[in-house]
């Protein structure tokens, strides 16, 4: 698809500045998203091409505003809802629970 992910040749995205001693994860939640993705992938919930395509199908504005691992999280959520492993309502309920705990 001719989506927002296909950035090759576009201008105005700013310089690429490689980080010195870049950590594997910048935030602890990224480590969890990595684990969730690997577990659901290896568990046969989706293949790598379906995963990539789910990232491409993100809302374009959300895609540009979100980080690498937020792309991963969004794609896993999309695929698990589409294949019936989860419902959107279950996801939202859990989100609300966590927000309450954090408050």
């Amino acid at each position, binding site marked *: *698809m*001719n989506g927002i992910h*296909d950035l*090759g*040749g576009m201008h105005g995205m700013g310089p690429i500045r490689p980080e010195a001693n870049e950590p594997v994860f910048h935030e602890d939640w990224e480590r969890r998203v990595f684990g969730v993705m*690997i*577990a659901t*992938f*290896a*568990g*046969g*919930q989706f*293949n*790598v*091409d*379906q995963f*990539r*395509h789910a990232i*491409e199908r993100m809302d374009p504005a959300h895609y540009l505003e979100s980080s690498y691992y937020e792309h991963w999280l969004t794609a896993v959520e999309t695929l698990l809802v589409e294949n019936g492993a989860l419902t959107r309502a279950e996801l939202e309920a859990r989100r609300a629970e966590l927000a309450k705990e954090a408050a």
Partner: protein
Amino acid sequence: MPALTKDMVPGLVATGGSCRAQAEVPAKFAQGDRIVVRNINPTRHTRLPRYVRGKHGVVEHDHGVFVFPDTSAHGQGQKPQHVYSVKFAAQELWGAGAPSRDHLYLDLWDDYMDRA
């Protein structure tokens, strides 16, 4: 469905779950072949970037046989085929203003290309 076990993790992380296919498939192209990239605009998944569609290049290396993402992403099978490293002149992609000695190498599947 196989569940992920702890002993599977290192291999999976190391290989990223390789998409190399075991099928014997004849190669459509050989090193040195001049190709033109198909100008396709599927609304579904493809790994063919927009900026290379319709451009001319030269096959530099045959990587072997891999799963075809365009079908695999949609439950339409692996359609295994050769993937090549294809060389494009920067000026072919970006015009006369690009540096004349720069080249870009892209990994492309058989189905993305025709003989030029």
